[in-house]
């Protein structure tokens, strides 16, 4: 494999960067060269967040070129659109279809794109889309599992990310990443991995 590039987008507070951190660590465990470039910009909670992961190249700059990403993972419907230009034709998009409406949208002063619009744009870019509806998020002990970990599991199971990462390495990292809620996170991961 020449290299595998992942573009992550979402909103600050959704755990987008955590997805990147887990992938980075799992790739590193597998002995793969990796560069993880998170960009929070000025965003505190509620702002646009992106991150770029480049795996498998000995020498790689941090930024993924347009039409260069093998995989886009998005945790917010509208923000997906900011990643479309980076998708490689033939690449994958995994979208956790949560809607985090900006204030102007909530008060009816600005439009918000439908999931269908996102699907059209992704299709125009020549990539395939997997949509995870938030209401399908499984529960663990009565509460929905962490959506970011679940989404990562879905991406590993349904895209070439599964060839790049060893699910066991992902699991091993999730075990050590948090002191609390290990079982909940592992359940989220395995439920995501089991989703076809």
């Amino acid at each position, binding site marked *: 494999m020449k290299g595998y590039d992942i573009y992550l987008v979402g909103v600050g507070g959704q755990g987008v960067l955590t997805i990147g951190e887990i992938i980075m660590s799992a790739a590193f465990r597998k002995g793969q060269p990796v560069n993880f470039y998170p960009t929070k910009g000025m965003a505190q909670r509620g702002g646009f967040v992106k991150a770029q992961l480049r795996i498998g190249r000995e020498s790689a700059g941090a930024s993924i*070129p347009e*039409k260069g990403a093998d995989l886009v993972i998005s945790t917010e419907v509208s923000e997906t659109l*900011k990643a479309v230009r980076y998708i490689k034709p033939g690449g994958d998009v995994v979208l956790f279809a949560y809607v985090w409406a900006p204030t102007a949208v909530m008060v009816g002063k600005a439009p918000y794109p439908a999931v269908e619009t996102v699907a059209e744009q992704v299709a125009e870019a020549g990539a395939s889309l997997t949509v995870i509806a938030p209401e399908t998020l499984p529960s663990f002990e009565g509460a929905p599992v962490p959506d970011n970990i679940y989404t990562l599991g879905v991406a590993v199971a349904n895209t070439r990310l599964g060839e790049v990462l060893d699910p066991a390495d992902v699991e091993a990292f999730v075990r050590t990443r948090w002191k609390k809620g290990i079982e909940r996170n592992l359940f989220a991961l395995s439920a995501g991995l089991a989703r076809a």
Partner: protein
Amino acid sequence: MTVKLMTGNEALAWGALHAGVKVVTGYPGTPSTGALTSLLKMGPEGVHVEWSVNEKVALEVASGAAWAGQRALCTMKMSGLNVCYDSLISVAYSGVLGALVVYVADDAGANAGMPEQDSRGFAIMADLPMLEPASADEVYRMTKTAFALSEEAGSPVFIRLVTANSDSFAPVALDDDPPAWPVREAVLTHDIDRFTKAGAAICMGQHRDLLARLEHAERWIADHGLNALTLGAKGGLGVVAAGITTAYLEEGFEIASQYGFEPEAASVLRVKAVHPFPVEQAQALLRHCDTILVLEELEAHLESALRVQAQRLGLSTRVVGKLDGPFERIGEYGVGHVVRGLAAALGLAIPADLFEGRATAESFAAGRPITVCAGCPHRGTFMAINKAVRRAGFKKNEVMVTGDIGCTILGMNPPFNTVWTEVSMGAATGLAQGYVHAGVPAPVIATVGDSTFYHAGIPALINAVQHQVPLTLVIMDNGWTSMTGMQVDPGTSEDYQEQGDRKLDLAQIVPVLGVEQFWVVDPFRVDEMAETLAAALALPGVKVLLARQECVMPALRRGHRAGRTSVVAGNCNLCRLCITVTGCPAITLGSEAIEIDAAVCYGCGLCTATCNRAALRSEATLEVAP
């Protein structure tokens, strides 16, 4: 060797530590912040690490240590370099006895806002060497090199990163057995010819010494092979790549080879010491190649220097870069620049849309202006300013509210639209005075955060007091340097100050600056604050309001909440006033009533104050914010 994943910033911290650094100073600034943060976390024994009040003081502290023979590091973003540059130029003239490494992080692409300043120009102007590593691993090694070079040449040395490598995580091979640096005694050198500037003879002598040190550095850099030249086919293509752009060469060559480019025929000069310009290697490249592609972000420094060398050699080598295109002086470089540059230099036919994705998709995305966090006290201040302007009988577009650096600038965005300007640290208070002198008939308001006020706001306030300029300054004191990730500032609670440090109190500082009209207000009590502010606007002279509530992030990390806010669903008619006024991320629209995300809500009660149907209820918790 132990290979670890870390950011360029952290790698720089390790490099400094393994080079025997004794004093580390800096001021937070994205994307440089992580270096000093890492060192504070490591807490190395015998090393003094501090967030200084501003970059100028930071540089002076580090310079003092370097003049006393120690190894010192000073960290900042490019804006901070501007702040300390007055001192730096003077220190450059004197040189150093120990080592002084100045780490500056530039932000091509303006990921964090502020100008896309290319700090290489400052190295050129100060005649100081500047190193520019590409990968995190290189950052670690070149930081050690920077200390060695500084001590060898007796000169401050810059190390410059950009956002793409300072904030990127990558594997770094750390030395397992770094040299144990013997404890150095501080030395005192009494030499006014070197350490003062009074007199033309002294200054011109120092200027001569400065140039000699730069020349020395140039030889050292050449001897240590920091800039690598590999020659390919005679008369073929040459490539000059600077710092971060070298990281994209291999990938770009590979892609371009699909379109007829022959990588082995190309000659390549990888420039990691960008100043002084590697004249000998550049001349060798010029003699060897007919066309040279220059890859450098932002300004055309290397390209211009290369063209000068071509002229000196009497060569009419074709240079492809920015001056004659195809590249512009704006934004970050990527692999696309390498490939497009090769295509332009060699006339390769590459598809026009090779790096052009579907950009139109973004036009369907919802706008997401950045705003303050749920529970942020600045929200209350913006609401109070807007209210006070109305209460004082003015329209919003009549009252200038100057803004400053940090989270306090977020009042520029909807729903507040409160602050109008952003210039540099502490600038709001000076700008406001200019508007007053210009003859603006309505009251003028200046805003500033606590850390920014300590940094560079105090002189501006003193100026206003001396000249008795009628204006109202609102200092938004949340006790932290928040925008860069909650660093400790002089006003942060004693609980978070470093061992032996003490907290200062703005409520004591402002009155002794000669401010006679001074109020401490609570931004969570919007009505009271608006009333105080409206009254202040009508008074003559300098008025200062200190709006005080702790930043919500550290408070949340301690498990603190200001209160509990709940929705009385039956009373809510979905008028959305609470959303329109506060823009709080904790509030969303439900089908029957608005909803509050209990996990996000801090219980500040600001939304409750906006509701005129008693549909929101806030109860303060018994805890009191420190």
